[in-house]
């Protein structure tokens, strides 16, 4: 028994890609009693219980307002045609609910806030792995050490920097860029919060690439930037994708950072903020709330179903984010 507590997160290039769910044992069928009725029923019941909350949201979001007010969503199970199915809720949520704008804002926050930490961390990871410079080890330990810091520790000072700028003994060291409520501000915050983990994971991956490739590229006259761009990046796609998906979901689903740095009232609010506000303002308007909730979930669910292997890898790798 090798003590391999985490599934192959596929962050080493040497490993073959085996997602956890695909590693079905072959010998399990040989002479061993497979699951009987009890196992099947227990699994089925658990899955059903797990699905019920989501089904409730989905069904409610397509029912007419009067139906939603008068009967529970489960009544459609035995009377599917007795309810007034409609897309109206989605139209209302997207349009007057402002979720179309919020969705665009979420994209504008999430895509750069995913690419930026990956790019910054990949360059740093390359330098930590394949370049010689003073303080290399110390810097790497410092970066990795920051994984233990919960982001709550950073919120107050960053917001004060964004609002007031920074001064040390009367000297302005951080300009008053008025970053509060701006995309740049939240990109930088998310980049910082994702960097320690990203650098650590990518350093492990990039550092374990065979040195012969990099050596021969150097002998052929490639400079560091070319090696990084033409060699390291293409070879690191699995690690970049795993972290990218983790970070994308993390930022898309984040409420806290967006709440503090983008705020809830301005035009820049993202879907999670818009949904949380809607709960506060119209908490009993279920047809609107459920369709809005589903709008916030669409993109993560698409990512989940289309990139499931990377998705699992990304989340297991991201389990040490501070």
């Amino acid at each position, binding site marked *: *028994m090798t*003590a*391999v*507590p*985490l*599934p*192959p997160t596929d962050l080493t290039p040497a490993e073959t890609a085996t997602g956890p*769910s*695909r*590693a079905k044992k072959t010998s*399990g069928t040989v002479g061993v009693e497979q699951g009987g009725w009890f*196992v099947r029923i227990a*699994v089925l019941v*658990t*899955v059903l219980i*797990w699905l019920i*909350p989501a089904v409730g*949201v989905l069904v409610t979001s397509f029912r007419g307002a009067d139906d939603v007010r008068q009967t*529970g969503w489960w009544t459609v199970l035995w009377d599917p045609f007795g309810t007034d199915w409609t897309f109206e809720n989605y139209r209302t949520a997207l349009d007057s609910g402002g979720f179309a704008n919020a969705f665009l*804002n979420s994209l*504008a926050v999430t895509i*750069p806030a995913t690419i*930026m930490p990956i790019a910054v*961390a990949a*360059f740093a990871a390359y330098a930590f*792995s394949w370049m*010689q*410079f003073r303080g290399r080890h110390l810097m790497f330990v410092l970066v990795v050490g920051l994984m*233990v*810091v*919960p982001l709550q*520790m*950073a919120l107050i000072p960053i917001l004060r920097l964004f609002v007031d700028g920074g001064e040390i003994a009367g000297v302005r060291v951080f300009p008053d860029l008025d970053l509060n409520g*701006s*995309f*740049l501000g939240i*990109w930088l*915050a998310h*980049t*910082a919060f994702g960097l*320690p983990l990203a*650098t650590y994971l990518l350093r492990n991956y990039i*550092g*374990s690439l065979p*040195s012969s490739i990099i050596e021969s590229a*150097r002998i052929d006259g490639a*400079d*560091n*930037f070319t090696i990084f761009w033409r060699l390291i990046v293409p070879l690191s796609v699995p690690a970049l994708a795993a972290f990218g998906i983790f970070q994308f979901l993390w930022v898309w689903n984040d409420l*806290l950072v967006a709440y503090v740095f983008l705020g809830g009232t301005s*035009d820049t609010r993202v879907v999670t903020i818009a*949904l949380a506000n809607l709960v506060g303002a119209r908490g009993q308007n*279920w047809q609107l709330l459920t369709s809005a*909730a589903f709008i*916030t979930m669409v993109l*993560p669910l698409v*990512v989940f179903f289309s990139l499931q292997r990377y998705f699992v890898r990304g*989340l297991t790798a991201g*389990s*040490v984010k501070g």
Partner: protein
Amino acid sequence: MTQTTPPPTETSEQQDPVPESARSGGDGAGARTAARIAGAFAIPIAGFLSLGWLLDFLKDDDANRLVIAAVAIVVGVVGVFALFWAMDTIVDWLPARVRETARPYVFVGPALAILAVFMIYPVVNTIVLSFKDARGDEFVGLDNYEFVFTNESMLRSIRNSVGWIVVVPLFGVSIGLVFAALADRLRRGEALAKSLIFLPMAISFVGASVTFRLIYDYRPEGFGSNIGLLNGIWMGLGNEPVAWLSQKPWNNLLLMAIMVWMQTGFAMVVLSAAIKAIPDEIIEAARIDGASEMQVFRRIVVPSILPTIVVVTTYMVINAMKVFDIVFVMGNAESNGTEVIAERMIRWFFISNHDGRGAAIAVVLFIAIIPVMVWNVRKFREQEAIR
């Protein structure tokens, strides 16, 4: 993975047989150098000016959101690569002696700069602020910490948080473990069943909170019918509807159920992979010796994957410590008695504008998390090393 340090590599400068001075010799050298220096200044300045203009545009409230979002994405994504390319190009124009000494700092510089400004400075500053007053002007000694450990609502939040870090990992890991073991023995449909349990992991805490608010929904007599599933079942059993979210202290468990729903899938996927890594021979041998399935599970499966169980548990402990969104979205934390530490921090810092108290709560949270987190990261590194 072995943490091999790559062998010291020669820099390309050392391999370059032609010294810089020899290459750039000749009459045009002076002019070319001047052009390079001018370029080294012109590019960043032009970059900053255009960036400033673009960022102003992004703040323009009247412009079309679609255009703004598209521009923002392009600025953010292209900007970060342009930054590295520009810095690398500038380094190319430096004198040959310093060029390769400077280049590594081009690669690690941005990461270090961002972390210094957005992580290291804030940690220090938060600690300092935790000893200051609401606006961060005057030192007030330990007043904020006294508040954290004497205020009734704060004490309740600490108690609730302890509840979260016990209940959520307990249920999440147990259900995940049992489900993983059961699904492992399915002949068909294992992948699908696991996907469906894992699905809630994809959505946000806010979305999950809305989902469960619908289940817990309550209408008093005369304010419409009860459409919440829990009250539907409860009334079906012949009871009066209940305002579930105000039932102290059980409402805390209802909120914890949301997190269990979301994170059981994670525990299940990780534990499932560990179960599949147990060599078949061991389990076969036990079965041949007449062990029942239950005994195989308790005596062989669980002990074999114990390290994984511990890792998953700490992961869920950390998440439960930092839970904020669920309590925040469910609302009325104080009157319902559902406060948790991370939620109190935002209350005091962001809503009540008391930076000192917010900072003190953050520091308490930090101190509570450090040991678990250090342990978790170390464990994670060990496993990486084994692989």
